[in-house]
């Protein structure tokens, strides 16, 4: 089954994205990606621009509300996601623990919901 690893990163981790090629955080991510692919569990994923680039839209009582920045006001912010194909949550948690963001932010593991997707896409 498929699991999404939702990567929550600290402001420092977002800042490290602009560091040079020898940055350890970047190196750790490259190695992690390679390990996922070689273990044949990687399905897909992407990373997001920093939270301040976000714009949030809501409709309340028929009125539009547009807000600069991310929806949730927390220190750690969603920085990207990875989809993995694994037998069970146990393995997904193992991979989450190895994620470079786990030691400086947080990684939330969520099962992907193909049932709801099917109901939407028909």
């Amino acid at each position: 089954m498929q699991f999404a690893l939702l990567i929550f990163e600290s402001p420092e981790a977002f800042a490290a994205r602009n560091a040079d090629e020898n940055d350890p955080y970047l190196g750790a991510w490259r190695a992690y990606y390679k390990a996922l692919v070689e273990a044949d569990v990687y399905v897909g994923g992407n990373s997001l621009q920093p939270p301040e680039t976000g714009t949030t839209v809501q409709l309340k009582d028929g009125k539009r509300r547009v807000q600069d920045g991310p929806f949730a006001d927390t220190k750690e912010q969603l920085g990207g996601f990875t989809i993995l194909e694994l037998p069970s949550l146990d393995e997904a948690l193992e991979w989450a623990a190895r994620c470079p963001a786990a030691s400086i932010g947080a990684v939330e593991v969520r099962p992907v919901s193909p049932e709801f997707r099917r109901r939407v896409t028909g």
Partner: protein
Amino acid sequence: MSGIEQEAAHRTIERVARESYGRLVAYLSSHTRDVGSAEDALSNALVAALETWPRDGLPQNPEAWLLTTARRSFIDVLRHQQVAEASEPTLVLLRDESKDVTLSPQFPDERLKLLFVCAHPAIDPAMHTPLMLQTVLGLDAARIAHAFLISPTTMGQRLVRAKTKIRDGGIRFEIPQERELPQRLDAVLEAIYAAFGIGWDDMAGVDQRGRDLAEEAIWLARVLLQLIPREAEVHGLLALMLHCEARRAARRGPDGRYVPLSEQDCQKWSAPLMEEAERHLDEASSRGRSGRFQLEAAIQSVHAERAQSGGIQWNAIMVFYEQLIRISPTLGTRTGYAAAVAEAKGAEAGLATLNGIAPDDISAYQPYWAVRAHLLQRLGKTPEALDAFDRAIGLAEDPAVRQFLLQRRG
């Protein structure tokens, strides 16, 4: 009662709870096989102690007080569950015993039976260690869950399910018979060692999650040794864990940097722990029956000799690994063997040994890639080494190990 006295009462409760938890649970559940209810009864008694002791002063015999109170609560718990008629004689027995408030603390120690129940072949092997940690040491499900990287809710559910199986599955509280004993004891030892954390420091993978359970595992092994002092492998397991524990202070640099075993400052190793380990290893070999844990302890003993001789007898380590592979050809053993071959006979020979391990087994096994990267680097095979380093870094969980490998990778 003053604040200081209250604090003393709390400390006593903590100490008695820690030392007596397993004995009380084992004793209460040995008649009924109902470990869950025994635990509930004991936690009720501990809550009662927290209320009563600071107010009325400490009882003369805290353990007996807990047992008497827990026993009363146990009867209520069982009654509440409207247990089957079959256990009515047990209730009568417990009730009769509970009238005796002057009860001596010399109630039978049933912890060995409880340990064998926790590691019973009918129980999912993955649950052996969590069951022991909870029922014998009284660790809460959340702490066990963190260590095993499972959600606290899931761990709680799995523990409840395992205890239901013990109660309803006809698993007997007994010491296995002679012919079964080695195999059954092995499962108990495996479970204790699993708590200690696998893959600690002879390779790059120091198990972050296992570390805070190391002391609990040593405690469990000491309890087991008290109960069954004649088995060589129990001494072997304790020797193994003590040798590893002796190096705790040397495993990290002052800045939190990871230090591999061969580069550790042996002045920082604990001499008393190493001496104790050696005593247990001697005791084990005097019994004339070799085994997996004795061999693993012997390997650590060779490493420990560096504190005296300044060198490492890699040939000896290699021979111990050869014997170990015959008994227990795990990935860890085979990877450790390859590392020893590389030191004894050269990197080329070590790499050839590594190549003998099936590719399917190693796709997510970090220590394999760490050793492989190291050997390829030594042989000057740079592109392959970089690739192996990436695999080892990507599979590492401990940030200090990741950092160490990133630096070695260059």
